[in-house]
């Protein structure tokens, strides 16, 4: 009897469990259940701070003081600032050139890494190194390499004979300073490009190349008519990611030049920090960092659409 009762109870409980399980298993329910953790995290920890940042940008917020709404005045006033207009220009020069260089070098490097190599693993690992060193410290290392006193870059350049002593004033002259910060950004970001594009190369079916070869295409033709078109979605994604990250870069400029000389390397993030934190004018700082948010959203939306269309 007792045994039977337990059995009945178990059956009843199990059927309830089965029912719950079946309920949860329905797409309309399982879907929301599965995205809830991510949603909660993003709403709690991103949406609220983001809303606050938005509010800052349209207020007269100053660190630790009461603030009130003032509309788009910050955005308007900023445009009159010399430093801001310069920053605006720098951001495009910096992002544009860094991403372009990374793209070209990244494709070349990926093509090379895709060849038959003797120490494949070691070489791939070495290429990845700049990507894994903590940025806060590797940029300091670069500063040390560029510093006027001990510049190993200039020392080597002079030793090899491609620079006249004392060599370029890397961080003190407008164009050299921009070159230096772009170079460090390329150094750091190239591995991401190379490895991701390499992954794209690996996935191109061999038959396509064989077919192209049968049609008489040489190496250049194969690259142009097979590799590039097949890589297009990968490239779009990589460029998209890199543009976002490069645009919001902070550490390299902060450590290497502090935005100088004469604001010629300031980026949105470094200027925002300078004004928002060092000076305490959070409102203006927030306006600087949000200035191009609408544009970024638009670009990303368009590009994502393009990628989706290409892939599916």
């Amino acid at each position, binding site marked *: 009897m007792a045994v039977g009762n337990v059995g009945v109870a178990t059956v009843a409980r199990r059927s309830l469990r089965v029912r719950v399980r079946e309920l949860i298993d329905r797409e309309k329910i399982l879907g929301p259940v599965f995205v809830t953790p991510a949603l909660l995290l993003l709403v709690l920890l991103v949406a609220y701070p983001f809303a606050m940042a938005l509010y800052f940008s349209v207020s007269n917020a100053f660190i*630790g003081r009461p603030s009130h709404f003032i509309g788009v005045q910050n955005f308007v006033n900023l445009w*009159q600032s010399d430093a801001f207009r310069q920053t605006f220009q720098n951001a495009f020069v910096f992002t544009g050139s860094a991403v372009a260089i990374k793209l070209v070098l990244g494709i070349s490097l990926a093509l090379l890494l895709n060849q038959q190599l003797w120490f494949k693993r070691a070489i791939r690992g070495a290429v990845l190194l700049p990507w894994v060193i903590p940025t806060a410290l590797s940029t300091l290392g670069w500063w040390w390499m560029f510093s006027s006193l001990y510049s190993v870059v200039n020392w080597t350049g002079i030793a090899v004979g491609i620079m006249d002593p004392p060599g370029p004033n890397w961080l003190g002259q407008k164009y050299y300073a921009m070159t230096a910060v772009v170079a460090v950004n390329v150094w750091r970001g190239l591995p991401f490009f190379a490895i991701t594009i390499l992954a794209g190369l690996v996935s191109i079916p061999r038959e396509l190349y064989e077919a192209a070869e049968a049609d008489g295409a040489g190496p250049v033709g194969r690259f142009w008519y097979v590799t590039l078109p097949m890589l297009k979605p990968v490239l779009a994604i990589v460029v998209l990611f890199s543009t976002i990250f490069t645009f919001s870069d902070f550490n390299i400029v902060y450590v290497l030049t502090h935005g*100088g000389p004469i604001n010629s390397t300031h980026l949105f993030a470094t200027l925002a920090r300078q004004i928002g934190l060092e000076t305490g004018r959070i409102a203006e700082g927030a306006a600087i960092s949000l200035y191009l948010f609408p544009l970024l959203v638009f670009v990303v939306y368009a590009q994502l659409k393009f990628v989706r269309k290409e892939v599916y």
Partner: protein
Amino acid sequence: MEPISRRRFLTTTAGLAGILAAGVPPARGQQREISYLAWNNFAPASDKKLAEIGQRFTKDTGIKIRIDHIAHAQQAAKYASEVQSQAGHDLVEMRMHFPWLYEPQLVDVSDLVADLEKKYGKVISAGYETAHVKGVWRAVPQYHLFFLATYREDLFKKAGLPVPDTWEDLYKVGKELKKMGHPVGIPISQNYDSISTAGPVLWSLGGMEIDKDGKTVRINSPQTVEMVEWYKKMFRDCMEPEVLSWNDASNNESITAGKAGWIHNPISAYLLARNKKMVTADGINHHRSLAGPQGRHDTDVPRHMGIWKFSKNIEASKEWIRYLLGKKEVYDEYIVSGDAFNLPVYTNLQDHPVLKTDPKFAAVKPEGVQLHAYGWPAPPSDKVQQITNLFVLPNMIAKAVTGTPTKEAIAWAENEMKRMLAG
């Protein structure tokens, strides 16, 4: 398989909840405990001494103290986030003008300062200018360090060069120094040392950026023209273009490595060379700040101790300040551990024993020198600080030395300053 996974998932969640709950600092409030955030002092021995004094404080008063340190460059971000979240440390170290910046968030400590002044004499002028905000002491002056001349005495002696007394003298010896391959090292870049030198040069000529009222821009003046012209000839004849690229560490590195013959800095360069036993250490010495037609001025970096209003341990925090600064023997001990990098900020303590611990400290006395914070004589309001922090002064000079006509560079600076004061 599946139930186990689910259970595992549940345990993980429960664990996290537990962590979230347990993450609340448990002991606070039960026992009296305060936390104090200080910068990483350049003289590491003084940080060790501070910790030691902290332990004695706990033994004597029963109040626990936790002392955290942070790099100078990160202070702004850290303080902003503590103020924004109204939580963090009870006491914080306030550099230079910080009491003005965080004024509404800081406890009135006028009573503490009054006691200290009774004991040690008035707070020195730079301390008063920066910590006494609109009639109220917002932080207790702790110690200060100021800019003076660091030079290669050995090179000067070898070449028979006189020790300069005015900025104009510096130009004369600077020309010789550059010929000897040991140029003068005054940064003209987006760093704080650049401002620290440009200010004194301008003041000693009788010029200023903003007037005392904090509202009237006074940069477009004959004095500024004179200052810019001085910089131009210094840049041309006494220095190398490298100074356009320097950060705060560069002038130190240049003189300790044996390149620069003269720099304008607190004594950190010498201390580094001495402590690391570098070959240049013996040859480096200091001399007092340079003068101009309108007197002898220099940049001062006073440091204060402030208490956040959101602190729940204001009384205990005050007790710590009284313990560290109010007991003469403790304060002396603390100052001495700072290798003359940390100097007392009260008038009667100026001739401090620490200056006798090394013959090279003989010149580290601000006698006859007027010490000020950035932007003097304007009060360090947020707008004046924006002008400082956007490096308007060094950038004006940088423009002029790299080819922009002097008038144009000054007009640019005037325009930027006016815009920032208005905005």
